[in-house]
């Protein structure tokens, strides 16, 4: 057998395969279509080998007197099987290795471990949040038995433990796989969890005087294979099997963690990270994950409004857009400002630039948001699409640099009309009084604030889970948002609102679908040439390579 040096020959359930050197046995089995059940093993964490669910039969080539592998009638090495079962999660494949994932012994081992894991488990599936996505349930179907041989009293352990502000622990459900402990130590760099006591009385806990309050704490809930760790925010809210899952991205900072948005009947219940090694591995921060409740708010703006003498009055889209255009047409270029947002999608920003050009607006910018970066996922840039805003010229090298000048000119009355796209103008020093004095203030927004209350025309739009579109993260990766829920009331897609405004100002522009917008972008921007929504796919496309990363990174304030 003359395999190339980097490939190793491994026999799995009687069939020979080739795997790259360094492949874990359990991963090799999965690649060969032989899934090996496991609890403690997680591909992103170290392997403690403690759950014993992944026991398999393993063997190495039988060596002849010449120390060379003995070959069988098929010309392949004869395998010397190790009598004891071996774990498949902590060892890499080796040349000539044999693995049996479906032998009588492996089945016996799995059945045994399954039984052991269940004897002290409360079996409270009907009220457990994990039900439906629980690996105890899943493997019970295959390796469990209908009845229990356990006649004695179960071990009692702490329940409803608040490990931290966002994570609730039921120690009786815990199977002590240590995934959460390893995650906190190895990924979150906050070694706060550990086991206390011994043997079957072992329980998970935070170290004395410590709490699980890391901004990454909810990842422990995701990787908990059972219902021991639950999200305090999500628990008891919805049975997981009712959740519709939509792939999207997080918009709480410029990292753009890939997500799954879980919804039912147009209500968002949770966001969970979706694996993407180019962006977020398998994790996301708690802040981003929980930053969706505002979308479900009863305060959402639902109907277009136009200012009448008595204040804002409901209007039809048609008349609201016409009013907005009429008002904007009255002013000179240097009396108009457009404040856009780096929370907008590329498609929206592209159209925003068209609007700026249609109006000939001298002043335009975005509102920057900065926080502290951590060394894990969170970016200092809390806007998800600063790069997009720069790429399309909505803002410049230094986002927000124009804002003081714009604020000054609004205050002095030189700027008479402002289009606010998704931003609250009081965020950069303007007062509600100053905004009220503006003859024209066209506001596209989702929730009431001082700016919406001062609008002359108020146009209700979509929150991020209600949109389709693309954004470019801090590393120059173009990623897709997908619509998980419909916007409330008459609220419309932001890109449609801007398109219609442009249409009112300059006539038809031939854009009917968001794909048309993206096509315009792809035709105009060399880095995006030939791309389409489907080509971007679920995991995005890198627009700038690593060497250009520094250039692509936004300037810090």
């Amino acid at each position: 057998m003359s395999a190339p040096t980097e490939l190793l020959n491994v026999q799995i359930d009687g069939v020979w395969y080739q795997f790259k050197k360094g492949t874990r046995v359990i991963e090799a089995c999965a690649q060969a279509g032989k899934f090996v059940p496991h609890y403690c093993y997680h591909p992103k964490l170290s392997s403690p080998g403690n759950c014993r669910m992944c026991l398999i039969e393993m063997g190495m080539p039988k060596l002849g007197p010449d120390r060379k592998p003995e070959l069988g009638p098929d010309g392949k090495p004869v395998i010397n099987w190790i009598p004891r079962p071996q774990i498949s999660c902590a060892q890499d494949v080796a040349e000539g290795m044999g693995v049996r994932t479906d032998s009588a012994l492996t089945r016996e081992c799995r059945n045994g471990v399954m039984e052991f894991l269940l004897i002290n488990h409360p079996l409270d599936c009907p009220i457990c949040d994990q039900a439906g996505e629980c690996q105890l349930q899943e493997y019970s179907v295959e390796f469990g038995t209908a009845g229990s041989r356990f006649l004695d009293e179960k071990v009692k352990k702490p329940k409803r433990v608040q490990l931290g502000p966002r994570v609730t622990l039921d120690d009786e459900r815990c199977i002590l796989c240590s995934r959460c402990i390893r995650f906190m130590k190895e990924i979150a760099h906050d070694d706060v969890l550990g086991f206390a006591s011994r043997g079957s009385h072992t329980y998970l806990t935070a170290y004395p005087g410590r709490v699980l309050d890391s901004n990454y704490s909810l990842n422990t809930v995701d990787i908990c294979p059972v219902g021991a760790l639950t999200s305090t925010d999500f628990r008891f809210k919805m049975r997981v099997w009712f959740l519709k899952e939509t792939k999207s991205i997080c918009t709480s900072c410029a990292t753009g963690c890939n997500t799954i948005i879980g919804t039912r009947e147009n209500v968002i219940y949770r966001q969970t990270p979706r694996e993407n090694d180019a962006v977020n591995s398998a994790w996301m921060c708690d802040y981003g994950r929980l930053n969706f409740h505002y979308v479900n708010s009863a305060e959402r703006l639902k109907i277009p409004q136009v200012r009448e003498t008595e204040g804002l009055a409901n209007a039809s889209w048609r008349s609201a857009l016409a009013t907005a255009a009429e008002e904007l047409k009255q002013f000179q270029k240097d009396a108009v400002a457009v404040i856009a947002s780096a929370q907008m999608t590329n498609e929206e920003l592209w159209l925003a630039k068209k609007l700026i050009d249609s109006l000939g607006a001298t002043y335009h910018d975005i509102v920057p948001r900065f926080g502290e970066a951590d060394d894990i996922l969170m970016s200092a840039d809390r806007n998800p699409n600063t790069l997009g805003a720069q790429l399309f010229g909505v803002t410049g090298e230094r986002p927000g640099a124009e804002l003081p000048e714009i604020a000054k000119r609004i205050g002095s009355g030189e700027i008479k009309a402002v289009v606010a796209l998704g931003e609250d103008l009081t965020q950069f020093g303007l007062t509600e009084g100053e905004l009220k004095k503006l003859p024209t203030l066209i506001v596209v927004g989702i929730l009431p604030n001082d700016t919406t209350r001062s609008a002359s025309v108020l146009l209700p739009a979509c929150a991020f889970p209600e949109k389709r579109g693309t954004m470019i993260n801090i590393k120059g990766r173009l990623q897709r948002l997908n619509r998980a829920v419909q916007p409330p009331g008459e609220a419309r897609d932001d890109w449609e609102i801007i398109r219609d405004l442009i249409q009112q100002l300059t006539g038809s522009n031939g854009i009917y679908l968001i794909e048309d917008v993206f096509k315009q972008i792809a035709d105009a921007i060399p880095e995006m040439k030939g791309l389409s929504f489907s080509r971007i796919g679920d995991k995005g496309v890198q627009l700038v390579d690593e060497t250009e990363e520094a250039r692509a990174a936004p300037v810090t304030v």
Partner: protein
Amino acid sequence: MVSIARTPHPREKRIIFKNIDRPGWTNEIECYFRDGGYEELKKAFTMKPEQIVNEVKASGLRGRGGAGFPCGVKWGFIKPGGSKPVYLICNADESEPGTFKDRYIIHQDPHQLLEGMIISCYAVNARLAYIYIRGEFPEGAKILERALAEAKEHGFLGKNILGSGFDLEIYVFRGAGAYICGEETGLIESMEGKRPYPRIKPPYFPAALGLYMCPTIVNNVETLCNVKHIVRIGGAEYAKMGKPNNTGTRLLCVSGDVQKPGYYEFEVGGITIGELINDICGGMKPGRTLKAVIPGGSSAKLMSAKDRYKIKTKQPDGKMVEQEVGLEDIPIDFDTLAAAGSMAGSGGVIVMDDTRDMVWVLNNINEFYAHESCGQCTPCREGSLWMKKITERMLHGGGVEQDTATLKSVADNIAGRTICAFGEACAWPTQSFVAKFRDEFVATAGKKGNTNGSTNH
């Protein structure tokens, strides 16, 4: 610990225990000097380290902690000239029920251990060594501290020991009271300040990735003491004691239903179970008969007096002859006890007479292992407590018919499926008790007061 002057039995061969209970003997270094103490260390420094390793290999010395792994082979895993420091750890976590030998060395003859250790460190080039002593031995720890201070005062520790150019420090490390800390990788984890979860082997063999991921030798107290005597008489001479592959002497700790329980030292295989009980330990108590023996600490498989055992003995002409013998005729050595289905283990011989209720005895053992399972691996963690719950329920009249079968199958589901040998340690008692005394288990399970299955599923 009170030392009672006691004359060794004439059949004993006392080398390691030569000074134990010796009239006039104290654990001070001056007393040790009067007996020729630290002369072997001086001799060792005239040898090259690899010469000592070779002598230990030639001696055939096997580890006295329980597994019986050849000491010289273990030392041979340490490759000279490595870039990482080498550590040597003396495992003084003597915790196996029925075992009480190392503590006598520590209490009464600590300098023998230190001398053996210093020689061993020189042999494997360890410049830093530890004595890991179980937390329940506070007096032993104090004695060792004092002995270390004495040794240092006399230049046997520190820099340039006896002008050899060899530097060594030894520290006492006290455990916090867990049986699993006697498992060498659990011990190392514990020394690193972590929970003593045994490591996965491979890759974490201590000789390669031990303490702080450096090459580490972990040897039992008795094993290290033997090194001193191997240097004294030479490996070849040492190997003449005992029998091939089972060389030297062995400390045996006899407990249970004999007239004179205690500790003894014999050439390995130099005595049979029956001779030990009847000739050395004064026989069974009046009117009682031998029922069973656990020959190597509580985790060793039980041997019934009713059974016949197939053993192999080497004839004078070198031929191996297989014989069938009774329990009392089995010589106590590594290979014979293994062939007979048990093990020499830690040398703790537990003797049971005909009054013993085997369900009670097993429950006593199960209680220990359920309490001591570290909880890392699922089968041992859950299985050890389950077995204890079953035997306890049986004892309290709550047994059900299927208990005997369940006990066996639970034990079968643990043995061989865990990271460390604790899985076997807790499964072997149940497996062997149920196999050898099945009728007793069935009878106890069927006793009155049975609830015939509780509803607590």
